[in-house]
C-alpha cells in the first residue's frame, strides 16, 4: 500500500468509530487523541480493525507509535507493504 492509501484507510477506520469526528481539520503531526476527543477504548478499535482487515498484530508496547496520523502511517508502511 502507498502512504496515501494507508492514510485513507486510517481515516476511514476513525470515521467508522466516530462518525462525527472532524477529519477535515486534522493535523497529521499532532496527537490524534487530543484532536478527536476519543479515549483508549476507541484506540483499541483502530488496532482491532487493522488486525481484522490486514491480519497485522500490533503489540501493546507499540501503541505509543500510533499517536499521530503521521506516526501511524510510518509504523504501518513496512507492515502493509504487501497489502
Amino acid at each position, binding site marked *: 500500500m502507498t502512504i496515501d492509501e494507508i492514510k485513507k484507510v486510517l481515516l476511514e477506520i476513525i470515521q467508522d468509530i466516530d462518525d462525527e469526528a472532524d477529519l477535515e481539520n486534522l493535523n497529521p503531526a499532532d496527537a490524534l487523541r487530543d484532536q478527536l*476527543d476519543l*479515549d483508549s*477504548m*476507541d484506540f*483499541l*478499535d483502530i488496532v*482491532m480493525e487493522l488486525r*481484522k482487515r490486514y491480519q497485522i498484530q500490533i503489540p501493546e508496547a507499540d501503541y505509543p507509535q500510533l499517536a499521530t496520523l503521521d506516526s501511524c502511517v510510518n509504523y504501518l508502511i513496512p507492515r502493509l507493504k504487501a497489502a
Partner: protein
Amino acid sequence: MRKYPLLIIGGGLSGLAAGIRFARFGQKVLILEKHSKAGGLNSYYYRKGRLLETGLHAITNYASPEDKHAPLNRLLRQLKIPRRTVKLRQQKTSEILFPGRANLCFSNDFSMLQLQIAKRFPGSVKQFAQMLTEIDAYDAFAPRPKVSARTFVATFLQDRLLLEMIFCPLMFYGGSDEDDMDLSQFIILFRAIFQEGFFRPEGTIKDLLGLLLQQYKNFGGEIEFSSGVKEILTENNRISGIRTDAGEVISCDDLISTAGFPETKRLFSVPEAAAAFSELPEDKTSGRLSFLESIYLFNKSARNHLPEDRTIIFYNLSEKFSYRRPDDAVDLNSGVICFPDNFERNRQGDTIQMRVTHLANYEKWLHAYQDADTSRYPAMKTDWTERSRKVLGKIIGNCSENIVYEDSFTPVTIERFTSRTQGAVYGSSEKIKDGRTYFANLYIAGTDQGYLGIVGALLSGVTMVNQHIFNKM
C-alpha cells in the same frame, strides 16, 4: 464437537455486550442462555396480552450526545450503535422522601440536588462540597481492597439524616452489601444516579434487547436460547469447554461467565476445580438482598391522584434507614415507587404504570414456596401486596380502586428465572473487579464483576473482552 474461540454463559446485558464486542472483529462466538428470552435480570414477560418488564425502572448514567467521554456514549461507540439513532427520554424529577423529617428532589441537572441540600441541610453544604471534590478525583475502576463507603461519607457529613438520604437511592439501585457498600461501588452509583441521572429508552426493554441482539447477529454472533450450561469442564488447570443441559460438549479457548460468582462455582462438578475457583463457601459469597416487586396498571382516572412530575420516589419511614434482609418476609418501612410513564415525551396510553419495590427475605419466601400447602405462597403474596398498598396509600394517596391489573414477583421468582442464588439481583457482596479467576481463560462479567446497572452491565461485558481476550489474541 463444536469449538468456539469464545463461549459466553448468559444472554443478559453483559453477555450480549461481550458477544457484540468479540463478534465485531470477525471472531466466532456463541452465547448460551438458559431462559427462552434474552435479558437476564432485565427481561420481560407477557400477561393478558401486555408486555411487562421484569426489572427496569430506569437506566442510570444519562449523558447528552456531545459528552463523548461519558460512560453511556463510550459504551455505544464500543457496541457500534450510533448515539443519535437511540432515542432517550430523561426523567422528570425524583425524590428521596423521609416523611416527617425531610425530602430531597433531584433530576438530571445535578445542581437541583445541591440546591435542595443547601435549603434543607444548610449546615452541611460545605462538607457536601468537600465530599464532591473527593468523589470527582476518585478512580473507582482501579482494583483495590474493599473500603467502607459509610465511613467515607461520615467523615464529611455529620448529619446522619442527610447521610442516610444520600445512601437510600444508591443502595436500592445497586447495593449488594447490607447497610454499607464498598467505596468504589458508592462512587460509581453516586455518579450514575445523582451526577448523570435517569433515563429510559423509547419503547420497552424488549426494544433495547432487540437492538442488541440484532447488532450481535449482524456481526455474525450466535446465540442459543433454552440452552443452560450444566457443567464447566477443565483440563490441565484450564477451561476446556462446557457441557450443556442437553448433554452436548462444546469446547472453547476462552469462557466468560455472566452467571454470577457463586453461580459459576456451582458449575464445576469436580470438587478440586470448584475449590480452586474459590475457597469461599457459598454463604459467604451469595448476596443477601432481594426484593418484592409489584407492578400496577391504573386506569386513566388515577391521573387525578398520582403525581405527574415524579419519576421515582425513594421513601423511608423508620427512624433509622435500614438496608438489609428483613426479619419479616417484606420490609415495608422503605421502598422505591417508580412511575415509568413519568419520563419526558411520554405518550399517554390507556393505563398508567407504577412499580413498587421493597426489601424482602428470600428464606421466608422460599419456605412458603416449598410448602406442601400450595396455597400458602400465593396467599402470602396477596397478603404482603395488600399491606404494601396500605403503606403506599399514606405516601402517594390511595389508588386501589383504579387498579386494572397487578402482578408481583418475589425473591423466589427472581431466582427461578435468572438463576441468581437467593434472588440477589445485585449479586454477591464480593466483587471480582478485574474479572479474572483462578483459571487463566475464565472471566467473570456482569453484576459480580462490579459495574452496576444496565450501562454498567454492558460496560462490564465490553471491558472484559477488551482487557482480557483481545490482548491474548
